[in-house]
């Protein structure tokens, strides 16, 4: 696609969902937009499949001047993002066109989608940040859609972290933009080099790493993931876990100074954090009791593995090209597989006349892919290990990385086993809803076949390394399965709450509930008491505010004119003195 068509495709990809979202404001059109909403991702999908990297569109009137375009990497991100939104949209047709508050759901859906597509095709910082913010804030409406207590808590945690993340990103972007040639119209592509040379380099890297880390589920910023994935409607969870989490990764990829020397310490920090996330999330995840929360921890764990790639890129810049491929492949593979797993959690609940065997084969495919036994998973893991092979001087931890990645795969296998086990308990709970099949089937097929598109797009996938890595991929899966079997026979899950250490950061509700249980007081009563306490704290703040007001205002209020007269006299005296 080139010329006029290419320009139109770049504009329509984010433009169609945005326009549909805006048109939703016209009450008469509203009921026609619901059925169209699943198709809003189609232009983006077409762009990803047929677009040419390198083509750009300039919109000088937009913000500080907007630029749209595709690169080799963002085309892959656009592909899986659009495909997941499309499949999730088809799956969630019920939410979009009928049901409680479906109209509200629909408008949030369209805006979140528009933001997610927009941030991928944006080439300038302002448009990227705008799209990112649009996605972040619109997604809140999707997460709290069910309006129950879990959803509200998830929404609150999500929003607090999201606002913090946005602030950190803004700070990082401003500081980074200042170091570019044109600080008022910075392009994303200029940022890495500018950051590498900026005097506040460490501060910028820290704010961007943490800011985007809120989306990408960095440890201690990850709380919203398990809560939101568990509470949001399933299609939303699929979009969150498949597409939006990768917006954080893309943020890292396009802004962090990857491929520049002298960032060993940051690389090491990112690698270690990634490994920690990979193992800790697996350990916490296998103790969870809801399939979707298990999947959330699996996402945190997988994002940890991807950040090992990011960190390695910083430590060994010369490995950049290989690692870039590895991260892209990994992102594609994990997104599609995770979206398929999420949609599967709802498919399995529907009683159907189809052979059960095929259902379970379908459910097993993405699980196997994540564990590393399907082509996509195999290639993803192998290319990451391949990218780590370097002759350059590297920190000591480096030599253990392949082994650690293998051990992490044990965790992934165990998580997937746990997930399928929990899923079995939920099978056939609800009545059939035929449309739910199509989206899930589409994305499951893409999990298997999506990887084949990469060579067409000029990305050199290390197939040979993948074949050679097969033995390496087998033992962790075998070990994971053995572990899972042992655990199923002899171990009981530990009672770890869905947002793990968040309870330690906000200990009061948990402690109160526990104490209440011990004293024989019911949960609702304890919650009422807590709400009362909260109201009291607010009252405290209000009365402190009132006192502050009295102090600063009444003092002046009564004698303001006198005071000004006094000031006048003093200043006049000083003036006369000096003159």
């Amino acid at each position, binding site marked *: 696609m080139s010329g006029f068509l290419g320009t139109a495709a770049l504009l329509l990809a984010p433009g169609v969902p945005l326009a549909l979202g805006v048109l939703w*404001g016209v009450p008469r059109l509203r009921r026609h937009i619901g059925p169209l909403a699943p198709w809003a991702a189609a232009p983006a999908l077409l762009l990803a499949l047929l677009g040419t990297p390198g083509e750009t569109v300039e*919109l*000088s*009137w*937009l*913000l*500080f*001047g*907007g630029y749209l375009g595709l690169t080799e990497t963002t085309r892959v991100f656009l592909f899986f993002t659009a495909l997941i939104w499309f499949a999730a949209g088809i799956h969630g047709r019920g939410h979009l066109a009928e049901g409680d508050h479906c109209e*509200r759901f629909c408008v949030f859906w369209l805006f979140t989608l528009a933001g997610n597509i927009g941030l991928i095709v944006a080439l300038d910082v*302002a448009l990227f*940040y*705008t799209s990112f*913010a*649009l996605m972040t*804030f619109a997604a809140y*409406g999707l997460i*709290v859609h069910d*309006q129950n207590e879990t959803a509200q808590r998830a*929404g609150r945690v999500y*929003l607090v972290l999201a*606002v*913090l993340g*946005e*602030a950190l990103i*803004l*700070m990082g972007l*401003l*500081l980074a*933009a*200042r170091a570019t040639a044109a*600080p*008022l119209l910075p392009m994303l592509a200029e940022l890495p080099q500018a950051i590498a040379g900026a005097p*506040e380099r460490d501060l910028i890297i820290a704010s961007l790493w943490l800011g985007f880390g809120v989306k990408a589920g960095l440890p201690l910023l990850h709380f919203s993931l398990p809560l939101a994935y568990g509470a949001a409607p399933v299609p939303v969870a699929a979009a969150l876990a498949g597409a939006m989490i990768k917006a954080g990764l893309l943020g890292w990829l396009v802004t962090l100074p990857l491929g520049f020397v002298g960032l060993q310490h940051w690389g090491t920090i990112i690698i270690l954090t990634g490994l920690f996330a990979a193992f800790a999330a697996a350990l916490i995840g296998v103790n969870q009791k809801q399939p979707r929360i298990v999947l959330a921890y699996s996402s945190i764990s997988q994002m940890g593995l991807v950040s090992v790639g990011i960190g390695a890129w910083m430590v060994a810049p010369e490995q950049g090209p290989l690692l870039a491929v590895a991260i892209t492949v990994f992102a594609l593979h994990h997104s599609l597989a995770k979206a398929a797993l999420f949609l599967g959690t709802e498919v399995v609940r529907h009683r159907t006349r189809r052979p059960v065997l095929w259902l379970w084969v379908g459910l097993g495919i993405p699980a196997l892919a994540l564990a590393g036994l399907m082509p996509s998973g195999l290639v993803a893991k192998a290319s990451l290990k391949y990218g780590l092979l370097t002759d350059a001087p590297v920190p000591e931890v480096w030599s253990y990385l392949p082994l650690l990645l293998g051990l992490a795969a044990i965790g992934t296998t165990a998580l997937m086993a746990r997930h399928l086990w929990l899923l079995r308990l939920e099978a056939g709970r609800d009545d059939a809803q035929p449309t739910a099949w199509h989206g899930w089937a589409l994305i499951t097929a893409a999990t298997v076949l999506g990887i084949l598109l990469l060579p067409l797009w000029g990305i050199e996938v290390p197939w040979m390394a993948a074949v050679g890595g097969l033995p390496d991929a087998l033992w962790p899966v075998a070990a994971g399965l053995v572990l899972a079997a042992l655990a199923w026979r002899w171990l009981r899950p530990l009672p770890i709450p869905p947002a793990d250490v968040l309870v330690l950061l906000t200990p009061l509700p948990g402690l109160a509930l526990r104490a209440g249980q011990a004293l024989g007081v019911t949960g609702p009563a304890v919650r009422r008491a807590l709400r009362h306490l909260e109201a009291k704290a607010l009252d405290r*703040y*209000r009365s*402190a*505010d*009132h006192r*502050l*007001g009295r102090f*600063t*205002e009444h003092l*002046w*209020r009564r004698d*303001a*004119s006198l*005071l*000004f*007269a006094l*000031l*006048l006299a003093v*200043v*006049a005296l*000083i*003036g006369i003195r*000096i*003159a």
Partner: protein
Amino acid sequence: MTWNALILFGVLATSLVASAVIFLLAESRHTTRSVFNLAAAVLKLLLVGWIVWGVYQNIDYEFRFTIIEGVDFILRADALGMMFVGLSSLLWLFTTIYAIGYLEKAPNRSRFFGFFSLCVASTVGIALAGNLFTFLLFYELLTLSTYPLVVHRGTRESLRAGQVYLYYTLGGGALLLFGVVALHVLVGDTEFVPGGVLSGLDPSLHPLLIGIFLMMIIGLGVKAALFPLHAWLPMAMVAPAPVSALLHAVAVVKAGAFGIARLVYDVYGIEFAFSLGLLGPLAVAASITIIYGSLRALAQDDLKKRLAFSTVSQVSYIILGISLFGPVGTLGGLVHLLHQGLMKITLFFCAGNYAETLGVHKISELDGAGQRMPATSVAFTLGAFGMIGIPPMAGFISKWYLGMGALQAEMNWVLGVLILSSLLNAAYFLPILYRIWFRRRQRLWCEGKVLGRFETSGWLLLPTLATAAFALVAGVLAGMPFSPLYWADLIVSREYLP
């Protein structure tokens, strides 16, 4: 007298004449008054548009006559002044429409609209003033013409607020007067010139100039609600909604901020002010006000009061921008003069709509209002997002330029203030949005009156939606010619490259 001078005078005269005629009209002549009011507002907007185009092409518009030897009355259209005139004429039109709907069947409308027009005339006078004397004249006229608006309801509370308002503003005015006189003694008639008129004075006078600056900043800071001179502003929110809207967005607080801009850019000159070391303390004062206002806003349950403290905080963004030495910071401050006006007037219109339609004044009573009044709530949401600085709203453009200006002025700590303020803004605006959109309605609203076929009276709804749309478009289309950003850029290029 040339045509250009007449047109310039016409901008001022439209609202002055409107004011006089409205005072003379009988209370019952509702339709005549409305038609006249709207006609004057539209005419003024057209004249302003004409002059804006002329100023863009560097045509001089000046109206001057000598009062006594050495003291001139000067009106002059420059880029900075036209920015403020443009804002006030545009918002005057919308506020007039809103006020007609809001005060339907209320008593004393003649008095209200008369002073309302007078208030706009003073604002335009402040914007067009070509020297300190003319500026002071209209600055004081503004005080006197807004007092009747603040106490319009005549309740005990509003009379009390009016009294405090007068104490503050007259006190501040006295300080300003003293400063104007002192400068007059030093350099004669102080005309506004880009780059300032004081830098040539003898260095031995510099301490005196610092003293005068301080005094005038205090005088202007009262209207701009700089901490700790802000106390009148939250009290004055007892006024009717259109008055609050005008007070917070255009008239009073903006007159203070605009005065500070004139003082820094066109009297002292930014480079001279910087060399005297005046900008640093001003930035600190503005930063304290920003944080203080946000912290206080957080505690308020009364919607208008929360918005009032938010104004205290947001107006200081403008002053912060002025105090950042460098073109980008200036740009951020000046563009926020327009952006804050558009966003805040939207929010006050919305608060008025909720109060008039649902009888809701408190935030805790807003649960589920989005279901009942979706259009107003969308406008409120846009305004609130703008205040937080979430793109693509206008507030984001301001924040980006202020942040970049701070970095280029080597004042990195200001970035921390901006980020903290954004977080606080999110903390006091997002819970309101949550209540409006996601909570179920808790109580019965007192919906006695039927207000037309929309969710509320069309007179109230249309201006709200229009200003919200402007606040959105000012951000999204910031790169277009004649956007606020574009115009601010023009001012800056004329200030820094004389």
